[in-house]
């Protein structure tokens, strides 16, 4: 099951408990708030379809830049940035550290995509890693024991919501 129950409980509390007034600044009159964006997407299949691996951009693209002797803007374009609906997720910063090896939003398969896990499976996997003796899995062992349980829950919730 992909739904992480703890977070559902948390948001149920917020909506039921009038937390919006608190969040809006204490005793301020309560404007009907926009309901919090549901943090949990409906549970699809336990294992999500895998995202394509981005090809390596390495030295090939390096050859295209220019050399100038004074300061010069290489490019000043305004592309549309990718919209990340999870950017305000409390686990984003923790998750971002994982992107170094697992790719943006954990979608790269080279070291195993992270967005294929349900929250529960993610937590189970991290628990398995805590006791692994396998050499290659060993690299992940410090990550499984170095985070608190709450941090692992946040990571699990984040990656389980990445499409």
């Amino acid at each position: 099951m992909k739904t992480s129950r703890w977070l559902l409980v948390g948001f149920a509390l917020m909506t039921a408990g009038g937390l919006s007034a608190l969040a809006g600044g204490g005793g301020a009159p309560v404007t009907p708030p926009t309901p919090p964006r549901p943090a949990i997407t409906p549970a699809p299949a336990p294992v999500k379809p895998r995202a394509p691996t981005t090809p390596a951009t390495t030295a090939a693209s390096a050859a295209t830049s220019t050399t100038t002797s004074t300061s010069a803007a290489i490019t000043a374009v305004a592309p549309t940035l990718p919209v990340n609906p999870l950017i305000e997720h409390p686990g984003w910063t923790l998750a971002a550290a994982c992107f170094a090896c697992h790719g943006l939003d954990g979608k790269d398969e080279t070291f195993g995509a992270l967005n294929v896990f349900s929250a529960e499976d993610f937590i189970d996997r991290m628990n398995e890693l805590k006791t692994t003796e396998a050499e290659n899995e060993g690299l992940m062992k410090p990550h499984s024991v170095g985070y608190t349980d709450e941090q692992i829950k946040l990571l699990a919730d984040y990656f389980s919501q990445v499409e």
Partner: protein
Amino acid sequence: MNRREFIQYASALGISAALAESLLGTARAQTNSAHATPSVSGRVVVVGGGMAGATAAKYLRLRGGEKLQVTLVERMPKYLSHTMSNLVLNGRRTMPSLEFAYTDLARNYGINVIQGEGVGVDANARTVKLADGKTLPYDRLVLSPGLQFDAPPGLTTADFNGKFPHAWDAGPQTTNLRNQLLNLRDGGTVIIASPPMPYRCPPGPYERSSVIGHWLLKNKPGAKVILLDANPKIVVEEPIFTGLFEGTLKDVVTRVPSAAIKEVDPATMTVKTSAGDFKGDIINIIPPSRAGKIVQDASLVNVSERWAGVDVHSMESKVAPGIHVVGDSTQLPKTGTYASSEAKNMADAIVRLMRGQEPLPSPVITTACYTPISEDLASWLTFVQQYDPETKGFKQSSTGMAHEPSQVNYKRMFDWFDALMRDSFA
């Protein structure tokens, strides 16, 4: 229900106080976002496009969104990766394979990349001056200039670009050192001198000794490496390197502990140290270092007269509000993956600060790093650091290293390197 009641209620349901706090934060952000723009407006200038600066620029845009203007100022047209540059010394990588352009950061994330040199900061006017006279205004400034290296007594910094390359910044010095190795006589001696901690890439001097040692074994009969280590003990991956220096490399690499350099005599090619004098055909001094020049010039150095002290929640200077320092110039450990992790935490903190919010209370640093050992072996090192309220710094919460150098690690090292560089430059 007030904050305390919520936390107590949550606690009764098995949700910890910390998690409840973060849920509160989320609710607040979401409520705010219903009334105000969720993104942030303003200008951030990043000076220095190494691992820290490039990652910071990209993640500021990812985190801050369209309205956060990010300018990246970098002296060089391309980044030359220090990571993997020891493999240029044994011919397994070429210098062009370590080049990474800034064009992807501009094209994919709308970062305004300026090739130029930041030479001064006016903290009152909130502007950065470039070498060509141009002035860039900022709301928040990020300085990530890397390191400045000190010449040992007997040498000048000009010697680094001549007969005594340190090659601790990848570039022409790396090629120079490679050529010196190619020209080394059989039976010759390579002296590598490692500085006292802290320095960039703690495994680096041992890695370099090992990579060169293995190369000498195959290519220069009778030649050897003398590693003059200013530190009493091997500072990281100790079992791995002790195993090598007492095993495969026993007749090739000699590590001299606690060998602090007193002087280098270029005429006789002698390195005088607290542990004796050593003569070499090649002298590769990895010099002590300090914060980059622009950080020094902005008077941000306040730790050990070398480093910029920063608040680890935000990497904001402790002496200059609005100016952040990230990467090798701070009091924190100095590696590429550490800098990447710092930069992401900082990007989040800057966005929060620009919205009038506090940075996250308990930042975490995560690193994973492969170490080349020879032309086909590598090891790895990884750790997690948690915020420590007592020291207001980081405390190691876990660490691990490879069981032993292996070919599998060597192969995975390149996957790791590609992923890491993609994360920072593409």
